[in-house]
């Protein structure tokens, strides 16, 4: 295992870099979409709530591999040529947005209604209330489940190797077939995934400790 790591570290690290770029862009884009969806899910209008709920149900209820294949093969059918890496980022974004929207929705429901009523009394617009009052608290409340979601996406990014994106998993497959040492190679890859995820978990725990103050309670 160590031998594989030492002999092939440049390609492995390159693969890891692709894994990180794809996952982190999907997380960031999914965050924006997820927040918007969460507003949709908590909307007063049924016409907004219902389609958001259907979206969430589909993307959370089907395997991500199937979603990836659907996006990758469907887009060219309707005349959109898309590179594998873009299809990968798009699928992971659409998937994580659904999961993040549910995390944010639950966070929003924990904000005391009195705060929102007080903001309305004080003449603060509903958009300003969301931006300045609700969301800063929601991000703090939802940090632990958000970290879990980031780790899940990092792990799920391994299956984009199926559509020939040369990330960590695919690089390992190539090394395994060249060296005939699948056991050692995949153990090395597992170690790299584990290391990244442990760093993420530690980072999140550190952030959480630093942000304990400033939360309004009922």
């Amino acid at each position, binding site marked *: 295992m160590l031998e594989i790591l030492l002999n092939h570290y440049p390609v492995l690290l390159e693969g890891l870099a692709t894994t990180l770029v794809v996952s982190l862009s999907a997380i960031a884009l999914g965050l924006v979409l997820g927040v918007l969806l969460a507003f949709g899910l908590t909307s007063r209008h049924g016409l907004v709530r219902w389609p958001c709920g259907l979206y969430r149900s*589909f993307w959370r*209820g*089907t*395997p*991500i*591999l*199937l*979603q990836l*294949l*659907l996006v990758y*093969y*469907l887009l060219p*059918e309707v005349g959109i040529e898309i590179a594998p890496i873009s299809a990968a980022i798009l699928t992971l974004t659409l998937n994580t947005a659904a999961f993040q929207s549910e995390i944010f929705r639950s966070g929003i429901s924990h904000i005391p209604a009195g705060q929102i009523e007080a903001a309305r009394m004080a003449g603060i617009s509903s958009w300003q209330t969301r931006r300045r009052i609700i969301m800063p608290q929601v991000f703090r409340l939802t940090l632990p489940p958000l970290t879990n979601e980031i*780790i899940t996406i990092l*792990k*799920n990014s*391994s*299956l984009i*190797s*199926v559509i020939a994106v040369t990330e960590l*998993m695919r690089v*390992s*497959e190539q090394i*395994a077939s060249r060296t005939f*040492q*699948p*056991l*050692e190679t*995949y*153990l090395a*890859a*597992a170690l790299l*995934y*584990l290391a990244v*995820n*442990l760093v993420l978990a530690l980072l999140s725990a550190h952030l959480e400790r630093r942000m304990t103050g400033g939360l309004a309670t009922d």
Partner: protein
Amino acid sequence: MFDITLLWEVRGLILQGFWNTLWICFTGCLLALSLGLVLAALRLANPRLFGYPVACYVELCRGTPLLILLFLLYYGGPSIGLTLSASVAGVMGLGLYGAGYFAEIYRGGFKSIPKGQLEAARMLGISRWHALTHIQIPQMARLIVPPGTNQLIILVKESALISIISVDDLTKNATTIVNQTFQVIEPYLAVALLYWLMIELIARGGYALEKRLANRQPRPASQQGATPHAHG
């Protein structure tokens, strides 16, 4: 645009895939549930000896993709004399991966039962075994049903990955149909609906079980937001 007759023509492949996904998920989940229970029991019975190894195992499952585990079993296995068929590797992969998560779910349920209850039971002369079967397990069962259901759903969805190690499951057969008919939407959407159906059934089952358990037992004190002194 949606051609339903096409699906009728390939029903054999879809049903075969559905059957394979069903039995592999079922045995994989069963393995995960029981192995997880063993891990959690070992950890609780002797934290000094088993605490650290089990915690490491849990972290390993949480931190590495299932796909890596499947590749290790299927492609890496033979080099240590472990030659598995693709579907057995699939079952073992799902079982070993899920066990790490279930061990943590069981432990969480066990830990959330207030210690005072056990102390009270001992005071009343209730045996350790009796306390376990009549006080701890019934309450724990109710607490672990929601996260357990969640985890089962995750495993069913993750089972699509076994198509990558060439098991003829729903996902693999859908891709086969796509390659044969050059139609993308019908096979993938039909298969997505079947996954959705399985997941919806598990979710409803979990919800029904949770309700049944809730009706039978008083709520544990920890769920009422009570202080340590307020239950009894």
